[in-house]
């Protein structure tokens, strides 16, 4: 039985310069409730794992936090210390979407520079920061290469540099080590740990419990669009879990999975075609 690898993070977590508050936030897409009355307060720096299975609502929650999506109900508030301007709170965020979102015909540097310019960072400063991060991530010599030929790991590292180029106080990372080899995943985790220790809030979405336990200071578990557990990992375990996070996860998510792809979601023509051909449909 695997034991929880808990660490004391008291010395690394602390008050952050920015905060994120989600109050009774809900979001539905047609007939599916992706996020259901979620309340989360992120006020301390550190790495916060957002854990859940496929379709749990992690990515939707990240998109709501990033204000790319607007909630159907509830409020998402992002505040920066000393900044009274409430317009475009995204300027305080660094975002790493699931698919990295890199332009393949541009070089790694051009991808990073594009976002640094949108954030109003001067090219000279951005280049210095970019080279520093690229050195830490081991891709300095690849900065002027088009990302078309990049491996998954190199793309992920480039996207991470892009998210960090304006030194945001809040970082939203969607599966940052997904599909990476052991070495690359370690380099990314190491960098994320280091920037969290600088006093940033990092929301780290993953479906790997072991990774979440290893790197994160706090864990938010999502299931069927709801937050089913939230706290420091060692505090979240019950005696019956015997220190095993996997057992605890099954306890938290002991419900039938949300049905997906029902006939109701399909268009009328698609439903008619399914009935006509006997392919797809109700099962």
């Amino acid at each position, binding site marked *: 039985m695997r034991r929880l690898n808990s660490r004391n993070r008291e010395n690394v977590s602390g008050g952050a310069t920015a905060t994120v508050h989600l109050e009774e936030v809900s979001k539905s*897409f047609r007939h*599916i409730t*992706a996020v259901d009355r979620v309340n989360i307060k992120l006020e301390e720096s550190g790495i916060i794992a957002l854990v859940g299975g*496929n*379709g749990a*609502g*992690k*990515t*939707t929650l990240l*998109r709501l936090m*990033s204000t*790319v*999506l*607007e909630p159907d109900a509830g409020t998402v508030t992002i505040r920066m210390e000393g900044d009274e301007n409430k317009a*475009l709170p*995204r*300027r305080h*965020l660094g*975002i790493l*979407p*699931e*698919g*990295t*979102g*890199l*332009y*393949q*015909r*541009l070089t790694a540097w*051009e991808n990073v520079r*594009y*976002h640094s*310019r*949108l*954030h*109003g960072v001067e090219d000279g400063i951005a280049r210095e920061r970019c080279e520093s991060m690229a050195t830490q991530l081991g891709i300095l010599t690849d900065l002027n290469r*088009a990302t078309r030929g990049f491996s998954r790991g190199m793309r992920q590292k480039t*996207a991470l540099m*892009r998210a960090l180029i304006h030194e945001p106080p809040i970082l939203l990372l969607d599966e940052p080590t997904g599909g990476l080899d052991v070495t690359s995943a370690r380099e990314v985790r190491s960098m994320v740990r280091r920037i969290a220790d600088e006093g940033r809030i990092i929301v780290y979405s993953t479906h790997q419990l072991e990774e979440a336990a290893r790197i994160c200071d706090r864990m938010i578990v999502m299931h069927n669009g709801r937050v089913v557990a939230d706290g420091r990992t060692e505090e979240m375990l019950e005696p019956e879990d015997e220190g095993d996070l996997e057992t605890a996860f099954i306890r938290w998510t002991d419900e039938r999975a949300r049905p*997906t792809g029902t006939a109701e979601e399909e268009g009328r023509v698609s439903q008619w075609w399914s009935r006509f051909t006997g392919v797809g449909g109700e099962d």
Partner: protein
Amino acid sequence: MGRWSRIRTIWAKEMLEFIRDWRSLLAIVAIPILAFPLLMYLVPSVLYAQHIAWEETVLQVEVQVSNSNSTPEEFDSHMEGRLLEWTLAPMQAGEQDELEQRLLNEDVEAILQIFPLQENNATVYECTIYYTSTDDSSAIAQDRLVRVLTEWSEVLVEKRITDADLGVNATLNPVRLTAKEQADTADDAERTGQLLSYFVPALATLWTATMAIQPAIDLTAGERERGTLEALLGAPITRIEALTGKWLAVATFAGAGAIMQGFGFAAGIWILLRGAPELTPPNLGPTTVLLLVLALLLFTVMIVAVQLAIAVRSASVREAGTALTPATLLLLGPILIAQAVRLEGLAMFWYGVPVVNVLLGMREALAGTTRAPHVAIWVITSLIYAGLSLVFAARSFRREELIGSIS
């Protein structure tokens, strides 16, 4: 960082991506510049070469004369020098099936039947040519036989008029129309301008619309499919700024393509005029050029916004292509209307119809018949349509479906 700086950053990035794609460069530079000159050089060259080849081909025909074993007077002399190898054969009247079969078997390319008749104390010749119009050789043989008959007829007419002591020209041309060149107040350059007005506006608008399809898809549905749109919208920009940057990029691309097309077209016309000295280049003054550019610019603003709006509502590149291609082909309707109607006496209403209005404006400019009220109507209505298209695009760009699915 100001709004326009962010828009410029987005525009510059999109243009950089276009420039990096050799297919885009080919579409925007090489094809427009080379296509028209090549077309206007190659098509006449190929047609001329084919014409020469036919001019050297001797075709087999058969002549049948009713109730006679010989041809009528002077007929034989007209068959000389016509590249026709002919034989005289007995008349096969009433056996049409057999004639058709011989033509289908290509024993001969055409069969001429001559029926001499008596009418008012003179002999007249009723003639029938059997041929296959869908067969090139047969059609050319028929054409050559028609020329023979025409020439033969003219000679007979002249002879009979002379025999009757009448003047040939006075008898045949008692009413004479003055040559057009002497009476037409329009000069050669104006006539060339009018000729161009029949197809240049259609080509320019269709080309612009077609050029915009791929970038419009790539910058919206393509970005959505590749996941780059989410990263962009996660930056501190409004969706309107993102849309404006992209719209400017597509409009620049399509506009540049249209300008290149203009250069290519001018080169093509120059090549065409070199081969046809009887044509005079059109007289395009600064006002004409300004009106043409304005019309194309307003059309570009509108069509690019509409295409972006349609593309952004599609979940994938494939879906966007499926929607945009027929939508662009729908332009053929107003284009054909605008090219077919006569400008003279056209109701004012038409100068306010979307797409038709800019085409009519371009036609008037090229034909040199521009009228201020017409210009005012097509400029104002085009501005309104362009604005409405931009609002439609902006509304489409605000839709939350722009960002992925549930996960």
